[in-house]
């Protein structure tokens, strides 16, 4: 598939230098061609979303359709804001995704700290239980979950979206790995000698050390919650409690007919995440590569 290593090795041998690192070979032009194609593939649908949300429907339904942005952005955006309570839905999504992200950062770090650095009976079996729960597809239990929410009287409320997502097995696993490698036992002993309680060790020493890993976890949780659809669709009823995804759904009248409005809503709902991504994209890439194991 790649020819780097086979070409790099003989060259290194003939010059008498030690063998080069296997994947530091010459980069062929077609490597860039394929990668640029993949960038195009990733970015084009978003660009198209932008094109449609800045044109009137005539421009995108002519033959051939325009592929350039137009000047209709504000007209469509205004229509989005008047058709559904879009601002409210953005606020709701921020509340839901923000609370989940914060809660996961705290609760998963706390549990990860216990599993990584504290001694207690049943620790290892309990950790295995945590790992097993990662494999349980809980999405299939939405009907009983709906009944629970109904009994709690939480139907059509934001806490029905927040509370079930406040802790995650993946988050615990992720934070445990980081704490285990970063927090050394000498530091913990020193803190204990100074009279720190376990809580103080967690809050003053452990958490600051893994702040950036916890931040990545928070980001992933935020993005997941922001984009969640099935559960909000089931549990939220009134438009003032819509998350932004439900607001887009409400804009989508009929399939294949006038998607300008829905596209504009989708674009407006994606902007906050795109802005976030510009600042923290590198961190997220590192997080995905580093965590590797996430469903």
């Amino acid at each position, binding site marked *: 598939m790649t020819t780097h290593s086979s070409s790099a090795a003989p060259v290194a041998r003939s010059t008498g230098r030690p063998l080069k690192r296997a994947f530091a070979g010459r980069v062929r032009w077609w490597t860039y061609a394929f990668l640029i194609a993949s960038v195009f593939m990733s970015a084009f649908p978003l660009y198209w979303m932008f094109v449609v949300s800045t044109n009137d429907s005539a421009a995108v339904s002519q033959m051939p359709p325009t592929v350039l942005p137009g000047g209709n952005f504000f007209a469509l955006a205004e229509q989005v804001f008047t058709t559904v309570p879009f601002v409210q839905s953005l606020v709701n999504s921020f509340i839901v995704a923000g609370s989940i992200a914060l809660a996961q950062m705290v609760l998963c770090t706390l549990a990860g700290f216990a599993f990584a650095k504290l*001694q207690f009976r049943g620790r290892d079996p309990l950790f295995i239980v945590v790992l097993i729960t990662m494999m349980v597809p*809980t*999405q299939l239990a939405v009907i009983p979950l709906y009944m629970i929410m109904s009994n709690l009287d939480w139907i059509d409320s934001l806490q029905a979206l927040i509370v079930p997502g406040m802790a995650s097995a993946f988050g615990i696993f992720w934070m445990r790995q980081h704490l285990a490698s970063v927090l050394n036992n000498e530091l913990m002993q020193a803190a204990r000698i100074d009279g720190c309680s376990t809580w103080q060790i967690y809050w003053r020493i452990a958490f600051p050390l893994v702040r950036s890993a916890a931040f990545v976890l928070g980001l992933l949780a935020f993005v997941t919650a922001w984009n969640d659809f099935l559960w909000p669709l089931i549990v939220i009823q009134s438009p003032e409690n819509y998350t932004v995804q439900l607001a887009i759904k409400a804009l989508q009248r009929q399939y294949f007919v006038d998607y300008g409005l829905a596209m504009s809503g989708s674009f407006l709902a994606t902007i906050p995440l795109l802005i976030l991504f510009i600042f923290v994209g590198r961190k997220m890439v590192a997080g995905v590569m580093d965590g590797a194991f996430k469903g």
Partner: protein
Amino acid sequence: MVLSAPPRSTPPRSASARRLTKSAAPKPRRRIRSASRMDAFAPYMYIAPFFALFAVFGLFPTVFTFYVALFDWNPIGGQTFIGFENFVTLYGDERFWNAMRNTFSIWILSTVPQLLLALFLAQLLNNVRLKFANLFRMTMLVPYITSVVATTIVFASLFGRDYGLINSFLNLFGIESIDFAANTFASHVMVSTMVLWRWFGYNTLIYLAALQAIPKDVYEAAAIDGAGGFKQFIFVTIPSLRPVIIFTVIVSTIGGLQIFTEPLLLSSPGLTGGAGRQFQTLSLFMYEQGFGDFKFGYGSAIGVTLFALIVVFSLINYLLSRRITSDE
């Protein structure tokens, strides 16, 4: 997997050290005792929130699904115990088998090309001399932050019958426009494309991380033995990636069998996945029965079946991938 290596041996040492410092610390006795009692209890307090939340919102609903499936359960009308009747009806229901076929077709069409593409791109990215490496990695993750709802709406437009960009493109080559939503296979291709688009970059990064973890001397040894690039890929890369490949296949299976949002939005305002149910998946069928027709029992029977399928397929994947890629 990569991360867990270094700290393995440390916890026992900390335990003994802790006991030591406890007894040696020159502090007032009462304070130590209360503090240590708190500390003995602390770990359980720290892990309790997860277990409590999981018990209430994860485990209980999952177990309860099996129970509800044994009832004719209407949220307004009440419930009657009917044993396995829901399952008997379900397995004789043509709509169920239709949804099953659709789900598997979409799952295979989205997973196989996606993982092959991810493997290929990861291989391209795995070169320290590559320029703009960060830019490539970052753009690949952009689809992942785009919601499924937004993704579906964009792709529905791109795949549009009359004015869709893809059909306009096909027309350039004299190919007739395809009504993607109306045709069973074409609609599966459309849904699979959406899934592929959202996840290929994510999987690429996972594979890339695994590729970077392969020790370079393995390749050097293979090169000295005369293995070319392709042979190295087959005999070094693939076996080394085995655990990660198994992982991504299992995750894609769990996700693929639960595809829901795309067919729902495409069949909007209905829940049937097209006029002829041509792209209704099992998850959408469950939603239609549970929250469209308010048959909670029947819907739960679908949920239980889906659950069993996911468990079985995860196991099969695991065993198969182990057999196929094992290097003897």
